[in-house]
């Protein structure tokens, strides 16, 4: 009953958002004619060339630097690695911002901070690939409603990072839930909602200071009810067939734009073509440089979105809110598209009617990359509990999901969806030291994140108020009695 009005409004706006992501794949190479890797980024790119449309342009570069860290060893702890079987009574060494070593025992320097993990668990930091923190900041007043550029159905020109308020008090609460990386997306009012941004969940004066270095952008696309509801009386689309016509029309223009610019970037002949922010984002998708995250509830609509991707030669990285993913789990597995889903949301609108708790287990069983996502600032703090529901739902169908498997839904699978799985998402030597120490088994309702490190720096300690981030908004507005939020 809390805050009925705000909750209801948020549910409609934000819970409908979905993102579409497209993964760079061999398929893309066949349709794109420009170089695809970051290494190929035009070294002549300099400030002040804003009239040019270049692959991997990075006009708002990350200024994130890891926070100061101490070499830390956690001993006598159960480690869910997301890379293999659990290690019981294990040890993990965090050094220089990286996971230095992990195993039954590790060699730690004499001056390392030693933490006794008896009875506790270590996991990789949780990654939520469907967040609106900062773009729908708390408190949810109209002034903080920055997530949907609901002015026209195609707004691929907006970038979520330009709405992110780093002082959103929801960020530290998310961190306290063990979440270390977020993909913040525009909402789902539009066919093309705009670019996402991948953030480290860290305090910063600017959004640039939170941006995950080197992370690709995502493009948010949305199927179904939301665009047609928002635009039905504002010039359309008014129907699902109108939605599909809208996607295709935009991709046709984007493909022309991509050809024009790829040609010019290759030969630099004559005046450069006119730059268009909308088409630039879509062209980057066609080049494979931006990942498509596609909000889509219904199985039949997902299948249509897959056909559109085939028609224009891009890939969908993950369907978000795929409440019916289980109905086409075989198709998603074949296409290599991730299923970013809730544990038990459904029924809140017609297209969400067939949500079932077994969605995670059934997609997992079919070989889909299953991802637990939140789309909710509260649910995001308990993604471990969401996955626990998924384990149990599998058990009821006779599908055995181990905790070693379920932890992947929260870590390495979402890391893959962001194309960051070489850096984060598992406990393996050399990976970023984004690590959570849990008070117990993370799939128990009684367990809470106790300590959270990002790049080896301790950024949350439930038992030490001095290690708890309070945003500017928290000061004065939020009553404190000490201890964690």
């Amino acid at each position, binding site marked *: *009953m*809390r805050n009925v009005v705000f909750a209801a409004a948020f549910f409609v706006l934000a819970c409908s958002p979905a993102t579409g992501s497209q993964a760079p794949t061999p398929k893309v190479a066949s349709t794109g004619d420009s170089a695809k890797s970051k290494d190929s980024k035009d070294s002549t790119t300099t400030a002040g060339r804003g009239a040019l449309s270049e692959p991997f342009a990075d006009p708002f570069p990350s200024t994130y630097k890891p926070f100061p860290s101490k070499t830390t060893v956690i001993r006598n702890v159960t480690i869910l690695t997301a890379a293999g079987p659990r290690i019981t009574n294990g040890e993990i060494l965090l050094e220089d911002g990286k996971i230095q070593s992990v195993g039954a025992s590790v060699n730690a320097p004499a001056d390392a901070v030693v933490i006794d993990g008896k009875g506790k668990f270590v996991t990789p930091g949780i990654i939520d690939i469907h967040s609106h923190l900062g773009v729908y900041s708390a408190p949810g007043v109209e002034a903080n409603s920055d997530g949907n550029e609901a002015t026209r159905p195609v707004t691929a020109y907006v970038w979520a990072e330009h709405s992110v308020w780093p002082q959103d008090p929801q960020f530290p609460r998310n961190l306290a839930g063990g979440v270390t990386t977020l993909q913040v997306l525009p909402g789902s009012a539009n066919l093309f909602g705009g670019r996402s941004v991948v953030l480290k969940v860290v305090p910063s004066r600017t959004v640039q200071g939170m941006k995950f270095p080197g992370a690709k952008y995502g493009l948010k696309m949305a199927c179904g009810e939301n665009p047609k509801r928002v635009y039905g009386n504002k010039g359309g689309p008014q129907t699902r067939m109108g939605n599909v016509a809208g996607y295709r029309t935009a991709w046709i223009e984007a493909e022309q734009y991509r050809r024009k610019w790829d040609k010019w970037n290759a030969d630099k002949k004559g005046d450069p073509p006119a730059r268009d922010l909308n088409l630039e984002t879509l062209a980057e998708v066609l080049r494979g440089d931006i990942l498509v995250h596609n909000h889509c509830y219904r199985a039949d609509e997902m299948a249509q979105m897959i056909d559109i991707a085939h028609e224009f030669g891009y890939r969908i990285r993950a369907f978000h809110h795929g409440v019916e993913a289980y109905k086409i789990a075989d198709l998603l597995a074949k296409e290599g598209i991730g299923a970013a889903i809730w544990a*038990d949301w459904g*029924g*809140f*609108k017609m*297209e969400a009617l067939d949500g079932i708790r077994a969605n995670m287990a*059934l997609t997992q069983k079919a070989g889909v990359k299953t991802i637990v996502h939140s789309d909710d600032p509260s649910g995001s703090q*308990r993604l471990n509990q969401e996955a626990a529901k998924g384990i149990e739902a599998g058990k009821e169908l*006779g599908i055995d999901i181990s905790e070693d498997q379920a932890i992947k839904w929260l870590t390495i699978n979402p890391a893959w969806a962001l194309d960051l799985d070489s850096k984060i998402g598992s406990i393996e030597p050399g990976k970023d030291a984004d690590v959570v120490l849990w008070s117990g088994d993370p799939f128990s309702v009684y367990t809470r994140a106790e300590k959270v490190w990002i790049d080896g720096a301790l950024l949350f300690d439930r038992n030490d108020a001095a290690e708890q981030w309070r945003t500017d908004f928290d000061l004065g507005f939020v009553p404190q009695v000490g201890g964690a939020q």
Partner: protein
Amino acid sequence: MKWSVSSSALAFVAMCAMTTAVSAQTIAITGGKVYPVSGPPIEGGTVLMRNGKIVAVGKDVAIPGDAERVDATGKWVTPGLVNANTNIGFGDVGFSGGPREQQAKGHDGIAAGFQVWLGFNTQSTMIAPAREGGVTSVVATPSGGLVSGQAAILDLNGALALTDLLVKALATMVAQVEDDDGAQVGAAGELIGKLRDLIEDTKAYMRRKSDYERAQTRSFVATRRDLEAMIPVVEGREPLTIVADQAAEIREVLNIAKDYGIKVVIAGGAEAWTMADKIAAAKVPVLTGAESNIPGSFSTLGSRQENAAMLRKAGVQVALIGNGAGDEELFNVRNLRYEAGNAVAYGMSWDDALRAITLAPAEIYGVSGSIGSLKPGSEGNVVVWSGDPFEFSTRAEEVFVRGKKIDAPSRQDMLAKRYETLPPKYNTP
């Protein structure tokens, strides 16, 4: 849920055939770890039900020869859970489709005469999932306006007739004091004044009914139907549940309760912890959750997950309701037990948390003689759990409502079964 152990389609069909209430006059649940809530836990206890009611609970209960025995060895046995804040039965689709029957239009924000349960669909597809989560009774609650209407308490027993579900009609009047627009006022002070006017006009109406019928009174802020509905509230016979989150809102609710001597219940109560002692002293119960810590509005800046535990510690009667923004009023009424688990994680004792989803709401709404505990005379609402009911790895293995085991699969179960192998067969299940 019951059928889930087996994954074969044949078994499923077989179980479907016996889904609807298996009727047994006398049932003995034996050998379990029994939590009566109204008394201390009993290891290896027996719960004996006859003709829909609980007739005995204890260690050494004589089991009649004709009793159907349910072996609960190694299991946990609790009362059916009571969810004190649901929209169940008023439309299965939250948004963009189908009927929604929980919000009246009212007159100038007042719909006191609105009896929400008259729109209750006893065949709602949301009933089975709730039951699978061990919830056997709900407070079906209206929303909107200043005074939303009146709630009823219902058992989720799958009966067709509303009269076979009703535990108590007129369980509580529901109002809210945090949304000025909803109440059709411009400011909090105006809202509180309007609520006071309604109470005072009800008293005037009660004194001068015959004058009113002859149109010889001044005009009142509410219609005759609304004023009539408010009578049991101002007489202190029916509680007034008021949605209030901010400390200032709660303060005014306490003032109204004191000034008019009416029984109030605070729902939401995000900042209740900041004035727990005052609430305890006023003997005002609070319905709140343990999953919100977000300053989602300027009324909930002090929202924290320890709220319920802190209130309980101060001596406040607390019933847990969902507040994790996961549609706990409808699709996830079933998740009430996880709210309790989270309350424990944030400082509440396990026993208090179980009480907060069983006996506490029953006491708050005056139905503790019927539901909320395992004691002789209560309805046979009993759940046999595979383990600790608050844990995700635990299942409600057997759910009895009014003495009958109900294991009808939910629509969601049927969908899972249908799509377990692809492509699906559209005649199965």
